[in-house]
């Protein structure tokens, strides 16, 4: 039986990176043998965020920018679920920027896959936080004035335990990274470079292809300084792979009662259990 079945049709353009990313997610989930009833994909809004439409699995497609809060709520309610937040660069780093910082700080056990095409695809090509300075778009007709955002550097500085960069054009590596992110205990960020064939004529498939360079398989993933340098490297060479991987206590497990017996969602409710609280008011 095939699990995580893919739909035939999608609203993605030919040549887009999204279908490649979808294939990688499917393969990662299947290879890990995760039972689909125990996995939830959470998305915001955008072209990337349409991912749950096209894979047969539990999903929560919420608001633009708000995939992380929903994912966190889901994970806290049921820690037995594997939770993936999956959305675009605009969604996660722009509209949802505050949630991004907060999710890193919390170190909740979720995997975060960001499709980074350096542009707002669905809304027709405006600049995203990762669009290069000077790049011309319909709204930034004089060129983007702001400096670009460095998600991986930001994640490292804020204390993320798993930081990786993938490329939609390197399937094998992407599957490996995704599997590691899904198995990582804690917040795992994967920034996935992806061309947008219609709206980003600068960062094309070829542009990425020429620059991405997988990190040495044996590099020390606990070396923060090395990871930070690799995160910042953005020029003729863009290093890909798992930059950093070090486990720390997760937010969910710090609640204590949350893990252990049945997940919260499955626990018995009885009003009388709360009655002793009245003692505080006599």
């Amino acid at each position, binding site marked *: 039986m095939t699990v995580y079945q893919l739909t035939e049709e999608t609203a993605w353009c030919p040549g887009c990176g999204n279908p490649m990313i979808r294939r990688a997610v499917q393969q990662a989930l299947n290879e890990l043998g995760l039972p689909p009833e125990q996995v*939830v994909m959470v998305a915001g809004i955008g072209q990337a965020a349409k991912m749950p439409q096209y894979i047969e699995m539990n999903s929560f497609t919420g608001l633009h920018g*708000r995939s992380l809060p929903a994912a966190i709520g889901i994970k806290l309610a049921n820690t037995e679920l594997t939770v993936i937040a999956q959305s675009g660069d605009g969604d996660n780093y722009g509209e949802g920027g505050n949630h991004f910082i907060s999710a890193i700080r919390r170190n909740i056990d979720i995997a975060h896959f960001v499709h980074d095409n350096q542009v707002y695809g669905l809304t027709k090509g405006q600049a995203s936080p990762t669009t290069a300075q000077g790049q011309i778009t319909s709204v930034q007709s004089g060129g983007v004035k702001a400096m670009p955002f460095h998600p991986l550097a930001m994640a490292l500085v804020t204390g993320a335990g798993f930081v990786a960069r993938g490329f939609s054009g390197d399937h094998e590596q992407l599957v490996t990274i995704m599997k590691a992110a899904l198995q990582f205990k804690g917040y795992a960020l994967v920034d996935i470079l992806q061309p947008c064939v219609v709206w980003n004529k600068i960062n094309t498939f070829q542009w990425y292809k020429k620059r991405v360079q997988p990190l040495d398989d044996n590099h020390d993933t606990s070396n923060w300084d090395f990871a930070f340098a690799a995160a910042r490297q953005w020029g003729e060479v863009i290093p890909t792979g798992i930059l950093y991987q070090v486990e720390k206590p997760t937010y969910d497990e710090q609640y204590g009662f949350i893990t252990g017996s049945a997940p919260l969602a499955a626990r018995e409710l009885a009003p009388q259990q709360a009655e002793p609280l009245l003692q505080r008011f006599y």
Partner: protein
Amino acid sequence: MDYSIFIGGAAGQGLDTLSHILSKILQRSGFYVYTTSDYLSRVRGGQNFFQIRFADHLIHSATSRLDCIYALNHEVLLQHIDRLQENGLALADEEVPALDRLTRLPLRAIAEELGNVRVFNSVGLGYILKVFGLDFDRAQEMLQQIFVDETMFELNVQALHKGAALTESSVPVVPGKQRKHILINGNNATALGAIAAGCRYYCGYPMTPSSSILVFMDAVSQEMEIVVDQVEDEVAALNMALGASYAGVRAMTGSSGGGFALMQEAMSLAGIIETPVVVINVQRPGPATGLPTYTEQGDLRFVLHAGHGEFPKMVIALRDGEDAFYQTARAFNIADKYQIPVILLSDQYLADTEVTLPPFDFSKISIERHLADAQAYGPGTYYRYQVTESGVSPRLIPGARGNSVIVDSDEHDEKGRIDESADNRRTQVDKRMRKAQGLAQEVQPPWEFGADAPELLLVCWGSLAGPMREACDQLNAQGLVVRALVYGDIWPFHTERLHALHAQAKKLVVVEQNATGQFEGLMRQEALIRADEKLLKYDGRQWKSDEIVAALKEVLS
């Protein structure tokens, strides 16, 4: 027997501790207690006060008149001494300049003699307890609870007795029969209601006057196994609560108007993904930051229209502490039954006012989850938005083998997949809106107080219940024939009793805590009934019962 003690001074002078101790002593001595607070949005300075009313009979409001003033500075004394009853007692330290009717006491001198000025208020407390002939054992018991440090406790007890030695028991009070009442404010009652209903997830971002819900939930989080979380902002708060609810737990969030405003897109999300959630807006006067620590009923219209787009929701205004408990618990059942957001409307007055109440009856709370049975669905046969006659689709939570639970903020088909066709749009809108029909059956009629066959009908909502009830009694005692309707369920709107009583009464007066008569507008819209008069108060201070009486007499004359 019915007295009001006023305790006023600057923030940081220990007013809240003193007021708390005194209220608890009165409660434990068997009196009915009603403690209101008036504080500014600052950590030090300013003029803050507490007003403790206690009686041997049920009381439902603060009053304007005062029987005892305990002032920690000159300014607060000047501001409130006009409210002192003829035989009332005004107390202050010797350092406060002399004033007609003021008794000045060596509070600081005694505290210094004892070696710690911080026991100042215990000297004052001893004096007040003695005047009213109150129980010193209860006082010691309270001091022991507050001051864990043994030396501080001893010192405070000494201060208490020194204060008592300064006077005689001039107006000894006798409580009614001994009763076991709780002393609780609206926010804590709300929190208890949520916990009784099995809320497992509560998150929020601090905002006065809603924060004490978050504080209480956090305090009991481990004991009750509730995930309580201070999150990055209110946008996150409601999105998180929806995630938690989707995954199967009962979830709630809360804020005041500003934070509630930030939740609007997610409110709308709750509407289209049909995920139950309870959200409380503890109102304070706006617009924007407004008066952070004061009260208003200014968000009624806003809350009715919460969230963009059209979807069924319910709005329940909490009327008093007991109502806060039972209605909050009920809100969870309604949210689950119709898979909608239920909004609770409270306000600073209700949130902070401490009142003695009979203990809440937890056996009256039922938990009705309305979840579908996963076993009933063969692989691939479950459709989250299945079209049904009631509009309510069977709800599964993730974890059902062979079936995906798919929710989507885009317009979707029965399965949960994006579908932008006109046909599907009509089908899904109709399905969602059909839930409003069932919801209309859930609505509870407003509370009613006062005379039958009324000549004057008073209408109000929410936390005005108490002051209105007392005002109504007073008016009837004065020979008027008055009945009051107090709305709790605001949306859907209940019209039957309003129509019936309106047909009998000669005059209808709406009383509200806002500037524009928002409820009166709703009444016109839903019941086609216009008030003859509107009594509106929007200075941030709650209507007191005697103020309602006075204002009514003015409009009736």
